[in-house]
């Protein structure tokens, strides 16, 4: 049986969230259960090293290399392992391709599942009640709030991340980018375009 506490232990900690975190962290450090240096390492990893720049590299390469793209869409995991983009919250990756006929968009209605090794820690809006509640029922209205209007002939497929499979959207390559190299292409790939709430940028 799950325990539904009438008096959750967390209420014993200070109510202010910053103080609540600090209090728990202090208790755990005093008992040797967490190492302050490890906390710094975790924060540094997700603040500075792992983020949407990883996903953007994958997308730019897929735009440039048809064989790579075919392998990525067929079975992403071995391709991403080879690039070093495997890890926590990215153990089972599926890449879904946007086309003129179908636009893909990713949500986690039950919590906040997100492909960390490729996109880092999800932005606040992705974890918001509004996005979690509405993305599956009215994705086009949500897209409009991101400034995106799809043509009538484009269907929307929303992926609700209910298991340990994580989805990355391969956005459509913008027109007028034929001459760009992978690095310049990667600069057009936004985080939101790989979640599917936006499109890749058009070169200025």
């Amino acid at each position: 049986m799950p325990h539904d506490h009438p008096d959750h232990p967390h209420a014993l900690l200070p109510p202010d969230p910053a103080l609540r975190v600090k209090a728990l962290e202090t208790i755990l450090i005093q008992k040797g259960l967490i190492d302050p240096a490890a906390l710094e390492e975790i924060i540094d990893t997700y603040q500075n090293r792992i983020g949407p720049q990883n996903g953007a590299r994958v997308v730019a390469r897929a735009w440039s290399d048809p064989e790579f793209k075919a392998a990525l869409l067929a079975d992403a995991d071995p391709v991403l392992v080879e690039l070093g983009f495997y890890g926590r919250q990215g153990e089972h990756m599926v890449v879904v391709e946007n086309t003129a006929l179908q636009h893909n968009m990713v949500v986690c209605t039950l919590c906040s599942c997100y492909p960390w090794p490729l996109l880092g820690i999800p932005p606040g809006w992705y974890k918001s009640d509004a996005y979690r509640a509405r993305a599956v029922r009215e994705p086009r209205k949500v897209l409009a709030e991101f400034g995106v209007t799809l043509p009538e002939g484009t269907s929307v497929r929303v992926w609700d991340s209910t298991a340990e499979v994580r989805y990355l959207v391969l956005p459509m390559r913008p027109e007028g980018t034929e001459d760009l190299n992978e690095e310049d292409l990667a600069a057009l790939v936004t985080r939101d375009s790989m979640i599917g709430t936006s499109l890749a940028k058009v070169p200025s």
Partner: protein
Amino acid sequence: MTRVHDMGGRFGDGPVVPEAEDAPVFAENWHARALAVTLACGALGQWNIDTSRHARERLSPKDYTRFSYYEKWISALADLLVEKGVLTREDLQGQGAAGLHALAERALKADAVAAALAKGGPASREGGPKPRFHPGQAVRVRIPADSALVDGGHTRLPQYAAGAHGYILWLHGTHVLPDSSAHGLGEAPEPLYAVRFAARTLWAHAEHPEDEVVLDLWQSYLEPL
């Protein structure tokens, strides 16, 4: 019946407010601390990802709704630490025993962080029941949607899909069943499928006749049609 976290399709939440692409990863310093403390505690090996998700889901509806994202994390972590006997209620009140904890030797060290994060924790398993469904097959989602194993227990079947008719898109493989794993009942791995549903079968006022929603659903969540 379902719990407060199961909000897919809910009405009344208002607009999504996008943040700039270059907004800080952590809006507040304590958000970063909450994430790091939670991950570091996970490394103590006293629970799995399904247990920790369920701890957040078991926050009272009032707390779940009023807490911000990382408040949910840190509060559920405190609850879990006490529930699993790692900390006592006295510890949380600053009145616990002094000195090192018996689990201290398991604490994640800084030089092990990169390897631990890179290693991840795959949910796929060998064995388990044979796949019952094939791509393209019509299926119906079980109803009711609440956990078949534990009353009020963890499940990854959203309420909005209960009873819905869909089609198997593909088989992901055999994955740990969260409904079992969250409660210490074993991993009970099962075939996991991507299943597509026409939006108009889920919602009375779907936006477009061709739109679809895809969910990842375990075999025991599905029945043949």
